[in-house]
């Protein structure tokens, strides 16, 4: 619990990952990634699709072991899945037979939180994501944005110190996505978790992040770390401020300068 008051620090040291494809080829997905995500920091990991950025999250979560290198969260090295992490995927991954409330309660059930306490927390979280009216609805009765908000509430249920989000708004339309970004910052302002969010949308990254990790295409290397100097709290207006527009343009230029087709050229 004390870790959750402030988020945990995440450190990656020389993390590499290679896969063996079906044809027996060795593919290097991530090469030598070293970085530190500070406690309660909001970091976005940006790169073209297929650059292995989702793999970084899975390695941090302990779902996939790195081929080389080490990840530590707080002071403990990651050796496997751990409960102080909340996961949000691109699709909401809700259980369609459970209503909103019971979906949010699911992690509490697994972790074994006392029922009354869990219920109270779930109600708080549903209020936080603005779905307290929808506790008894089934996921099928909700819109895409609402479902993803349920997924965020669920990820916060067992009060993890770290939130890992894998393109959480990638499947939403642009307008819902913008609204969800504002929403996520509001939630993060209230529950200061360490957040690592993977996205391929530059604007989204600039809007959300304290720092942006820029990953090159295969093999995924940490090309750059960009600090975002926009004041918080950020809101819908932030997007029209010159500083924001400037940051987005600068980052986009950096991407365009990057040899995207390195592999095919070689």
């Amino acid at each position: 619990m004390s870790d959750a008051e402030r988020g945990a620090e995440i450190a990656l040291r020389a993390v590499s990952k290679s896969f063996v494809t079906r044809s027996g080829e060795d593919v290097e997905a991530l090469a030598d990634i070293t970085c530190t995500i500070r406690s309660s920091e909001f970091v976005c990991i940006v790169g073209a699709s297929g650059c292995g950025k989702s793999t970084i999250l899975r390695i941090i979560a302990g779902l996939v072991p790195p081929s080389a290198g080490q990840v530590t969260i707080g002071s403990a090295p990651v050796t496997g899945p751990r409960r102080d992490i909340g996961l949000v995927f691109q699709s909401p991954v809700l259980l369609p037979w459970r209503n909103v409330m019971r979906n949010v309660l699911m992690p509490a059930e697994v972790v074994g939180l006392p029922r009354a306490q869990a219920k109270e927390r779930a109600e708080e979280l549903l209020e936080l994501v603005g779905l307290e009216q929808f506790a008894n609805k089934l996921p099928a009765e909700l819109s895409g944005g609402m479902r993803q908000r349920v997924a965020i509430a669920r990820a916060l249920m067992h009060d993890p110190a770290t939130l890992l989000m894998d393109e959480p708004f990638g499947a939403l339309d642009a307008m819902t996505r913008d609204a969800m970004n504002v929403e996520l910052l509001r939630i993060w302002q209230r529950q200061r978790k360490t957040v690592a969010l993977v996205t391929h949308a530059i604007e989204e990254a600039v809007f959300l992040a304290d720092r942006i990790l820029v990953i090159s295409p295969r093999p995924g290397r940490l090309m750059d770390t960009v600090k975002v100097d926009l004041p918080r709290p950020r809101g819908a207006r932030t997007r029209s401020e010159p500083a924001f527009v400037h940051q987005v343009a600068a980052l986009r230029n950096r991407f365009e300068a990057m040899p995207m087709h390195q592999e095919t050229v070689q």
Partner: protein
Amino acid sequence: MKRRRRLQHSTFASRILPPLLTGIAILLLWESLPRLFGVSQLLIPAVSLVVHALWNGIASGVIQDALVVTLFEALSGFMLGSGFGILLAALITRSEVAERALVPYLVSLQSVPKVAMAPLLVVWLGFGVSSKIAIAGIISFFPVLISSIIGFTTVESEKLELMRSLCASRWQTFRIVLFPNALPFVFTGLNVAVVFCVTGALVGEFVGATEGLGVLLMQMNFNMDISGMFSVLIVLACMGGSLHALIRFLHRKLVFWAEPEKIEQGTP
């Protein structure tokens, strides 16, 4: 708007009338054609004779007594067979050792026509209900096993990753994700099995039994009581239909989150 209202008004005309008319036409043809073409009433008895036989069977209690026995055999076999099918599917999909040890034999067993085992089972278990329960069970077992295996393996990988990230135990993962997730598929198997189980019980009774609808049917056959046989067929049809309706009802109640039509289309 106008069109919708017209549709509502015409539910009787569009939904109830066609099957009703077909039914009446069949009954009329059945009643009149044998007379028209001079087919013997002994071979195709008129509807009135069948209704009469049915009435007699019910009034004397012969049909009810036989129905209770066959229904008991079929349902017991169905529950045992499908229950065992679900359990074994869960075991096979959860444990690689179990899969390697069992699947080759299950596959080869599946290709044996199950009714061929009926004489053997009657020899082993006797003329009582147990041999019929066994046959109904075996015949119900396979469709449920196969569809449950599909159900337990057709699961979004992110759902399993989520459970893994929470360090859920195997039992928690099964209870919270895998089992409910498999239910729509399990029900496609149950839909098939509930029809098969009646066949199983009947075949068992044909091979050797002292009571039940199959026995009644064989006795009537021996006595050339064709209208009686028709009346038993009607009873069997009603029984099968009711069992199927029962499963569909449970399906809708338990798998409320998915539409049955979609699931049936989704499974091979």
